[in-house]
């Protein structure tokens, strides 16, 4: 399944503000605050107070009460501006693009119908290429630009670097809504209070995968993961789930973030093959995970290879189908992907027809000046469906703010969401101790060139498990 090339077309969707590289920020009270200083502040936030002093820029520690300077840009009366730092370039650009497309198809309809209390929802887009430091810089830029809130960030290594920034400047009440990551840092203290999540966590995804593998007798589970916070989050989830079954991780191999599909994964495959696993759980992005699945098949590691929802299933499938010359399904019989949204092929789910119709109607495109490398978007995908659901819930939250939108009203608006029906069969509720809307995890395998729901693990992997 693949879409046509549209990467260079101008946007025809709802209004979007997109910006280039960020500028230095100058707080009036404490001398110049550069992005480097703020990045160090993020590091200092991770390290805690003792080290924060020594890491302050140019020997100047960032005081807790440091105010943001620059020009205040009050939002127009007819707009609600959401700040987005996402992956629109690099090997993971498909994730940022698909998430954006799904969200904009929803916001497009909202704006067409008059917006939220007469205000149009506008996204201010910045590209971080799925890299932490640019993401921190973009967030500083967005905060300086006085966006109403942060929305739809992509990735764990990026989000985990931003969280200390939000905590450090918590008096600004800047919240991050529905990041595309299932990691724990934005779900737990000390940063959980600065983010709201919709999707299930990686802990839930990995626990589900491990439980199912163990249930069908595949107890030796190895992990292939990205060498960063995202990979570690998934690794930790697998480890915890295996411990509940009295098992340990059978073997592990890593790769560097940003690895391309053309990379050779032979060393990683050989490391894991030595561990003789019954299954491998991959915690990575589509390019590297596709490369691993390809090389695992070629080198004879024929065991189920599971991927988490972040992988970008359609992108993964597209790469693997393109890599096999004769049989598009050659590299895919062992794949099983966990998802945090239901199948977009199942039109019996109320939200699916609605999503498909709006995706077809608006067909949102990333603004041309943010398109560094071409990308063929998919008409529908799990990631864009998640983006659609994020936007739908975001709209519901914004509608609950009475009067003029103010950040101080956001918490109450979110916490008033109780048993909200997104149309996927699972109701969404939030509260001070409940900052994740959905809990369900779905499992899919490849059939006829597309991911379909896996109903029978035993039949799919138990017999075929003679590796």
């Amino acid at each position: 399944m693949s879409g046509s090339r549209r990467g260079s077309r101008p946007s025809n969707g709802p209004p979007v503000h997109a910006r280039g590289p960020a500028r230095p920020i100058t707080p009036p009270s404490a001398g110049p605050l550069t992005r480097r200083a703020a990045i160090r502040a993020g590091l200092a936030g991770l390290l805690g107070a003792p080290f924060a002093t020594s890491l302050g820029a140019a020997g100047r520690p960032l005081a807790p009460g440091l105010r943001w300077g620059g020009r205040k840009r009050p939002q127009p009366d007819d707009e609600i501006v959401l700040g987005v730092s996402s992956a629109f370039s690099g090997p993971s650009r498909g994730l940022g693009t698909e998430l954006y497309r799904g969200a904009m198809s929803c916001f497009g309809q909202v704006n067409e119908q008059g917006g939220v209390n007469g205000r149009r929802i506008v996204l201010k887009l910045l590209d971080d290429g799925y890299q932490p430091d640019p993401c921190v810089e973009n967030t500083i830029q967005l905060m300086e630009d006085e966006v109403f809130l942060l929305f739809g960030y992509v990735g764990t290594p990026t989000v985990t670097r931003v969280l200390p920034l939000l905590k450090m400047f918590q008096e600004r009440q800047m919240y991050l809504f529905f990041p595309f990551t299932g990691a724990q840092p934005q779900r737990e203290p000390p940063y959980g209070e600065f983010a709201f999540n919709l999707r299930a966590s990686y802990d839930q995804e990995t626990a589900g995968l491990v439980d199912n593998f163990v249930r069908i007798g595949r107890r030796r589970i190895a992990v292939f993961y990205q060498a960063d916070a995202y990979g570690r989050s998934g690794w930790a989830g697998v480890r915890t789930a295996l411990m509940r079954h009295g098992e340990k991780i059978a073997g592990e191999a890593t790769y560097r973030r940003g690895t391309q599909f053309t990379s050779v994964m032979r060393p990683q495959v050989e490391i894991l093959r030595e561990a003789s696993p019954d299954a491998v759980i991959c915690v990575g992005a589509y390019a590297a995970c596709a490369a691993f699945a390809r090389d695992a098949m070629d080198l004879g590691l024929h065991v189920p290879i599971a991927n988490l929802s972040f992988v970008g299933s359609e992108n993964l499938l597209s790469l693997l189908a393109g890599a096999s010359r004769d049989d598009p399904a050659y590299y895919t019989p062992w794949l099983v992907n966990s998802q945090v949204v239901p199948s977009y092929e199942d039109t019996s789910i109320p939200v699916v027809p609605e999503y498909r119709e709006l995706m077809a109607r608006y067909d949102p495109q990333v603004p041309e000046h943010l398109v560094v490398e071409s990308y063929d978007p998919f008409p529908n995908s799990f990631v864009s469906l998640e983006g659609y659901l994020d936007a739908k819930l975001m709209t519901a939250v914004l509608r609950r703010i009475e009067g003029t939108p103010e950040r101080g009203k956001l918490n109450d608006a979110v916490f008033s969401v109780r048993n909200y029906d997104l149309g996927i069969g699972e109701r969404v509720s939030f509260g001070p101790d409940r900052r994740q809307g959905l809990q369900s995890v779905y499992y899919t395998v490849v059939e006829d060139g597309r991911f379909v729901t896996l109903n029978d693990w035993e039949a799919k992997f138990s017999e075929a498990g003679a590796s």
Partner: protein
Amino acid sequence: MSTNPPSEIRIKRLFRRTRFGIFVLFGVIVVSTSTLSIRTVSSQLSEEYESNSANIAKNIADSSVDILLNRNLATLQSLIDQFVEIQSIRYIYITSGTGEILTHTFVPGVPDVIRDSDPFATEPVERSLPGMGDFVEVGSPILAGRAGTVHVGMDLDLVRLKIQRATGQQMYLICIILIVGILGSIWFVKLAVTPLEELLSYVVGLARRSGDATTDAKVLERDDEIGEMARLMLHAVKGGTTPGAD
């Protein structure tokens, strides 16, 4: 038996010896200074890098307690990832109180040497990791080792390269000083030898004339010791007596 004075006399031997002496002296100075300098720089840089690594390990250890207690390994990974961007730090891993590797920065996997090592070691130890190079690893305990240990690997090859650069720069400076010193010394020696040669030449001239010595040589006009000696020679050849000789 009378002997004829040589037709041309130059003070080559004296100059040669002096020059040799200068070379030897400067050689000794250069070798001893360089040796001391290289040892000092090498030792100080090694200690500095080791100390930096130990400080980083300690800072991570001090900061990891809450994160570890919260079992927030993603945040811990994010923390150590930032330190690996620091030059000369090549790997970091954190072991738990039971010795399990909880988080690390190795790609494509944790080397067997690391897996087989003492997870609680804190003393600096040199490691050679296949395919990665040579490292000095320092450790720092978290909560006295009960919560775990932070291990920081410093790239020895990079440190060696930096030491080589630093000592190379010092050697370069010392060599320049050596060359300038030798050239300067030769020039100063020549300053002393040239009048001596003039005096010698004059004395030879006096000897050839057998008492009919010239009285208008330039060396006689010198107001230094050479001029004084030339005038004394002339005085002696003319049959005078040396002042103070009797």
